[in-house]
């Protein structure tokens, strides 16, 4: 990452209270791509029987990562908001492991950014969840 992008990446999460509360860390940002990591935390458990992280926390991770990808696209001049987000859960994330989301803004118009993402635990070959979403493109 260039110095500029690294700085943006550091500031990105710090500026979003909810993402900071969930301990998210932006590990990579490109031109319409982003990667964010969220550490395992017992406060985020959704299934008390198994210790698996709540789908809602995975949604927050996916939403943040997709939003970051949409904002980082060179043809997106400013801020963004989610229009819709669909998440499919392939399997439960392994308790104790961090979750890593990778998002890609694969198409953008003057008003809408189309983004897809997947989330993985330590076994990157078998995604935990996938997401597709649309985001607003707002003038700066």
């Amino acid at each position, binding site marked *: 990452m260039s110095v500029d992008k690294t700085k943006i990446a550091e500031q990105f999460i710090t500026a*979003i209270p909810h993402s900071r509360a969930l301990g998210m860390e932006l590990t990579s940002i490109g031109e319409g791509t982003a990667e964010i990591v969220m550490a395992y935390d017992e406060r985020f458990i959704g299934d008390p029987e198994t210790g698996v992280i*709540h789908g809602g926390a995975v949604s927050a991770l996916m939403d943040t990562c997709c939003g970051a990808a949409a904002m980082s696209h060179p043809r997106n001049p400013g801020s963004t908001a*989610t229009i819709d*987000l669909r998440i499919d859960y392939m399997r439960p994330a392994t308790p104790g492991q961090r979750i890593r989301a990778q998002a890609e803004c694969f198409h953008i118009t003057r008003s809408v950014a189309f983004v897809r993402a997947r989330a993985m635990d330590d076994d990157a070959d078998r995604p935990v969840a996938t997401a597709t979403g649309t985001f607003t493109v707002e003038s700066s």
Partner: protein
Amino acid sequence: MARSRPEPVQVVKQRRDAALGALVRGVPYIGFLGITFDRRGDELTAIMPFEDKLIGNPLLPALHGGATAAFLEVTAIIGLSWSMLWDEIESGRLDPDDLARGRLPSLPKTIGFTVDYLRSGLPRDAYARAQVTRSGRRYASVHVEAWQDNRARPFAQASGHFLMPPRDG
């Protein structure tokens, strides 16, 4: 035909509230988000009181899309579990005191969940209700709506499909 005398209302209410409380308290993430449930008969309303840590855009400020999605998903899962438990409690197949003592049922698992963001989530308390639109042995479908000041102007809605926990019999 002689009918047995109905139980005093406060006994019934206390039992149902204890069962619901145990179900909700069992999930750490619900506590993390500060979500509570208000019960009127079998109808539940989820409440997410505003907190700074729920903000996604500090300039507006607006709720984080992820916080909204989680609120809707929590409402759907608890709503679905509650509708399943309600029948079992009322028919006597399940002892609500067992639930209150922490012997909790397995929760439905989310297969897919789609959230539509209709308006910006304001820095205010949010409310949501779930409607189970289809409930089968293995799969269930739920629709959820969330609003803030005005019930007729929802700020988000979602629909999801869930895998039901295996049941005896």
